[in-house]
């Protein structure tokens, strides 16, 4: 993938994440902040499908943006063909693993398995 395409995704995920995280924070403020973090309240959020979908989207956006940012930082720290390939693929694998683990949590909670 061309670097410009990767960076378009990087900027796009940042903007989208800002918007969705803002919604997420506003939702926390609709009830008392401490109350919104209570166990039953959190489970209720996960079981509400539109909200769970938004959390899933935030997870994907932040994982893509964060791991690409980490890749960029690591590429600037050190150079070398093998190192750069290891960093790029390592970040991709870590990103997929994080999304998979997060999605598993969201899906299991949504389906009442937790």
């Amino acid at each position, binding site marked *: 993938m*061309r*670097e*410009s395409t990767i*960076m*378009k995704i990087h*900027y796009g995920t940042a903007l989208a994440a800002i918007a969705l995280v803002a919604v997420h924070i506003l939702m926390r403020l609709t009830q008392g902040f401490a109350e919104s973090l209570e166990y039953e309240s959190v489970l209720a959020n996960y079981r509400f499908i539109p909200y769970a979908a938004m959390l899933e989207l935030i997870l994907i956006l932040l994982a893509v943006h964060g791991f690409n940012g980490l890749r*960029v930082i690591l*590429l*600037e*720290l050190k*150079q070398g063909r093998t190192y*750069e390939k290891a960093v790029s693929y390592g970040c991709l694998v870590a990103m997929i693993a994080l999304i998979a683990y997060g999605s598993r949590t969201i899906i299991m909670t949504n389906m009442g398995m937790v």
Partner: protein
Amino acid sequence: MAQVSGISDEQTSTPMSSNTILLRISRFNPEHDDSSQFMEFTVPYERWTTVLEAILDVKKRFDHSVAVRYSCRQATCGSCGMMINGKPRLACFTKISELNSNVVTVEPMNNFPIIRDLAVKFERLFNTHQKIKPYLIRDDSELESDEKEFLQSPEEVEQYIQFANCIKCGLCNSACPTMATDSSFVGPQALAQAYRYVADSRDKGKDSRLKIIDDSHGIWRCHFAGSCSQVCPKGVDPAMGIQLLRGYLLGFRS
């Protein structure tokens, strides 16, 4: 007449008058030395004396072995770039009187391998400059065309003309923080020149140039610190060129 005061950290015993400065020159020979050390000289100056003239005075009167690269003495050839009091500047274009300091410290430019003392290698800069194809690319030429020259409107010239003032002195690359950590980074000089040709209405090589800089160590590694634009002695704004160039890659410009 200049007076040498000693080597390394020794201070001069000569009392400083309003007409003299302490010139500290970084000395380093990679073939013999493990680290650089400063030699200090007390040098007289006038209102118009440049740092290069002070260095040449030292070479003439005290130590001819001080290595410094220079040529035109009028900020045109781009040879005498160096760190002067911690900032990349052209020695021939920097008057001692405008530094407002009794101590002038000269060191080789950052982000360049040192040949000796103040002289540095320019291979990386020239290679990256060459890489972005710094010439007009088109299928025809003035010789083949019916017209004798490729005409441009003043507005079209305005798009790139400031970037054509680059003298390849390397001060922008020396000031760039990304150049310090990323040995494969194209650098602000080459990126500004890429914009100079991409923005030229006579040029048809935009796509090939954009492809070259759209790399993991290309234009996207610029963090817009802006230090390149601050140190340019010719008023070129590489940081702006880089942002305008990004516009092409992001689809905001065509």
